[in-house]
């Protein structure tokens, strides 16, 4: 037997992108190769971690060997490993898309130089969030994410992007500071910040305040209606790969923390959960209405993010505070589905814009170029976001509705149905535009706008669609280590 060198995969998935970022920053000319290399490496390490969780169950590394609460523990159970794998997986494909996108002769060299370090730092922060078990550490990770994400938002340097990026910055910092004040309240009451310490805590006013503050901050960062105002412009004005990362991955980090808080703290507050559900409904309605009115493709996609996040919150809150032990599964699946599909959709939207030169929805059918594969990717991603079978989105909605039906919460079924119908309505605006009707007849044979860059969105879209077939094993994997206790 050869003894395997004991590599700590938990640390590795945080440090590998960090090392990549440093290298990419030091070697600006080779940044793209370094970047892709680091992401590939991270993806490999993430796979190793997933495998480890699969074989050994939840994995813990007590950094510095102090152990919580004095030190900080990294921990991967099924849920965190799933999200971490999702992040690296989607990140890998978006990186490949970005490799192509920023290598484009029109893209300024500056973008290439800065995209990679920022994105790798973002990846490091995201993985850090999923593996963290300490509230203050989460705050620091959230700030890493915020700053890197703001950087990515304004990558193009255009005035709309900078304006949107500044708004995003304010929202993001304020959200983090609300979270930090919540952390202060937790320490005031408990004198420790590790998750395990929260678990045993009896309800108290300070913890109630802490929970409210932290959830409010996270809701702001994740753009839950009516705290969503910053999101549409930020996501719509970033460059395509950046939009994909922001919409698919960044908002998930704060959503994930809400899930974790639910695990440890939410039983404290029934009112808060009801409020979250209500705001989720508001998000679905308002986001959809705005998506129906949007004139630009990327703006529509961004507004759909607002609506879809609302749906995740609905899924999460549908059974009240005690029901979270079940309802988190639907929320997590919907997060996963949204991440993959939305990344595909933003990359596809970017490709379409690149090929036909604009992204005005009304004029999508008037171009002589036909970016078939990008349009196909968009359509497949839309199917997953709408939640038609066999997509991952369907699996999430199915669990959501099944749970609601079993417990007799008919209003949540109605909400899900309405959300589905609305999403059909706004996506069909775009999809109808893809079917061209010869408003502008061209004598020369139409040009098919294909590129290697279509591979990334297409793969993501196919994953969004096809992973629904694997929903059962994914669910089983997410439950490893029983993130929410109890029997599987």
């Amino acid at each position, binding site marked *: 037997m050869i003894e395997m060198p004991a590599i700590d995969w938990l640390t590795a998935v945080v440090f590998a992108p960090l090392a990549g970022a440093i290298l990419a920053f030091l070697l600006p000319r080779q940044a793209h190769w370094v970047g892709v290399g680091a992401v590939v490496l991270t993806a490999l390490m993430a796979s190793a971690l997933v495998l480890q969780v699969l074989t050994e169950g939840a994995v813990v590394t007590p950094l510095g060997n102090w152990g919580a609460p004095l030190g900080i523990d990294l921990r991967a159970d099924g849920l965190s490993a799933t999200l971490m794998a999702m992040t690296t997986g989607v990140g890998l494909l978006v990186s490949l898309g970005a490799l192509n996108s920023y290598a484009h002769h029109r893209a300024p060299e500056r973008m290439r130089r800065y995209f990679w370090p920022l994105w790798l730092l973002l990846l490091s922060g995201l993985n850090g969030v999923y593996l963290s078990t300490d509230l203050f550490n989460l705050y620091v990770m959230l700030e890493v994410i915020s700053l890197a994400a703001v950087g990515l938002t304004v990558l193009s340097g255009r005035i709309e992007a900078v304006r949107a990026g500044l708004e995003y910055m304010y929202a993001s910092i304020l959200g983090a500071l609300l979270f930090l004040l919540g952390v202060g309240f937790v320490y005031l009451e408990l004198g420790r910040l590790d998750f395990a310490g929260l678990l045993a805590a009896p309800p108290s006013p300070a913890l109630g305040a802490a929970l409210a503050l932290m959830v409010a901050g996270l809701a702001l960062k994740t753009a839950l209606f009516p705290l969503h105002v910053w999101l549409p412009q930020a996501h719509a004005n970033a460059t395509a790969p950046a939009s994909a990362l922001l919409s698919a991955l960044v908002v998930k980090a704060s959503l994930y923390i809400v899930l974790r808080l639910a695990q440890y703290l939410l039983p404290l507050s029934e009112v808060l959960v009801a409020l979250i559900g209500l705001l989720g409904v508001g998000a679905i309605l308002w986001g959809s209405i705005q998506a129906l009115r949007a004139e630009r493709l990327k703006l529509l996609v961004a507004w759909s993010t607002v609506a879809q996040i609302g749906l995740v919150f609905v899924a999460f809150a549908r059974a009240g505070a005690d029901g979270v032990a079940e309802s988190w599964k639907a929320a997590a699946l919907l997060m996963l589905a949204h991440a993959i599909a939305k990344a595909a959709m933003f990359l596809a939207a970017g490709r379409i814009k690149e090929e036909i030169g604009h992204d005005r929805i009304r004029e999508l*059918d008037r171009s002589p170029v036909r970016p*078939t*594969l990008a349009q*196909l990717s968009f359509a497949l991603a839309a*199917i997953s976001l709408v939640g*038609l*079978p*066999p997509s991952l989105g369907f*699996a999430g909605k*199915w*669990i959501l*509705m*099944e749970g609601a*039906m*079993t417990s007799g919460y008919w209003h949540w*079924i109605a909400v899900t*149905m309405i959300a*589905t*119908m609305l999403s*059909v309505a706004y996506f*069909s605006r775009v999809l*109808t535009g893809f*079917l*061209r*009707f*010869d408003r502008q007849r061209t004598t020369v*044979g*139409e040009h*098919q706008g294909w590129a290697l860059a279509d591979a990334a969105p297409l793969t993501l879209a196919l994953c969004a669609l096809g992973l*629904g*077939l694997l*929903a*059962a094993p994914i*669910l*089983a994997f997410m439950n490893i280590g029983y993130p929410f206790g109890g029997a599987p």
Partner: protein
Amino acid sequence: MNNASLLPLIILLIPLCAAPVLLALPERSAGLRTAINLGAALVKVLLVAWLSWKVSQGVIYDLRWTVLPGLDLNLQADPLAILFIALSAVLWLITTVYAVGYLEKGPHRARFFGFFSLCVAATVGIALAGNLFTFLLFYEMLTLATYPLVIHYGTAAALRAGRIYLIYTLGGGLVLLLGTLGLWVLAGSTDFVPGGILEGVAEDTPLAAQLLFAVLIIGLGVKAAMVPLHSWLPVAMVAPAPVSALLHAVAVVKAGAFGIIRVVYEVYGIETAQALGLTTALAVLAAITILYGSIRALGQDDIKRRLAWSTVSQVSYIALGVALASPIAAMGALAHLIHQGIMKITLFMVAGNLAEGLGIKQVSRMNGVGLIMPGSMAAFTLAALGMIGLPPLAGFVSKWYLAAGGLDAGQGWVIPLLLGSSLLNAAYFLPMLHRAWFRQPDAAPQDAPVRRPIGWMLAAPPTATAALVLVAGGLANAPFSPLEWTRFIVTLEYSAEAF
């Protein structure tokens, strides 16, 4: 004997894989496209024939894939599936030939054939679905795949029709989703099992079972165009003729009707459905649809629109036969699934030929077309007479069994209903035939038909399907005829003592 071989999956994958290839092909490579289309359709017909043979030997194919705990995707090739899949395979081949001819110079052929293929894949899936969940998946896929076909021409009317179509069918799909979910929660399974899975539930909570039935029938009734959920069908006539032909004969409306068959026989079980009083309600709904559709067909001048209303009426024969709860009526219903398909596809293809070759789209302009286009109009005549129910054509056989079944089940009111409906059928088909054969072509210059020779690809398919109408009626008792196959199915669906 159950067999887990991949044959059903392969049959599903043929059109499913052809679709992206066809979509990706450049517009100009027409030859390659036609080769792929016809090749795939031919291979599929052969494989379906092989599958039918195996199933007739008593083999049941059963493939499963677990999607969520307790929720499987299930492909199952049972005799009922074979009935539908055979229809789909044969008519796909014929319609493909027709469509190649019809769209020879048209725009967006890559897109058309891609989605056409996808649409066929969806019908295969619907046929092979072994549980309601799988059925739902392909039901939704069918909706999405047909939408681009409906709006193919991109005119304002087409877009409007597309919007109405999408609202109806996706709404129906959502309702069906709700029904599937309800079924799953109530019964803990969505499997199609002869004799049904709801016996216990029906005893414990009859109201829930009844409500669920209503939800499921609404979800399926949209596609089956049952009154009052039928409005999309006449509007969707703006689609190209091959699309209309396929929509009416195999794909959309039949998917709804097929779903109703599955739900009544294999989700509820005919006895449970009867005990809950559901069959009566369904029969009444079907009767209303039959009469209403026929009456509305009378008033239409647009040929395709008249045919569409006729479809509304005819498809509900299937629901009626199912609801009569008699094995003989069931045979009629199942046979009508096939018979109506081949008859209606003939009618639509000829209507397309009239529009393509002569520019005629209205009944009032059909004067003397029989002399100009004798082959096509002969086929049309055969199919129309079949629709009316003239022996020995296919339509007669199904109507006969329906009537006999009605008597068998002690539902005498069916006889006048069928008679009335047949009279109405005659009332809207015979004038068309009369105009075509016994009137002189219009002399007025503005009405003079523009003559364009139609190629064999347009002429041959309706002739072939008309021949099928004749064969299916005349040889109804031969082995492997649709009727004989339905006997095979019905023996499975009805417990032995029912005979």
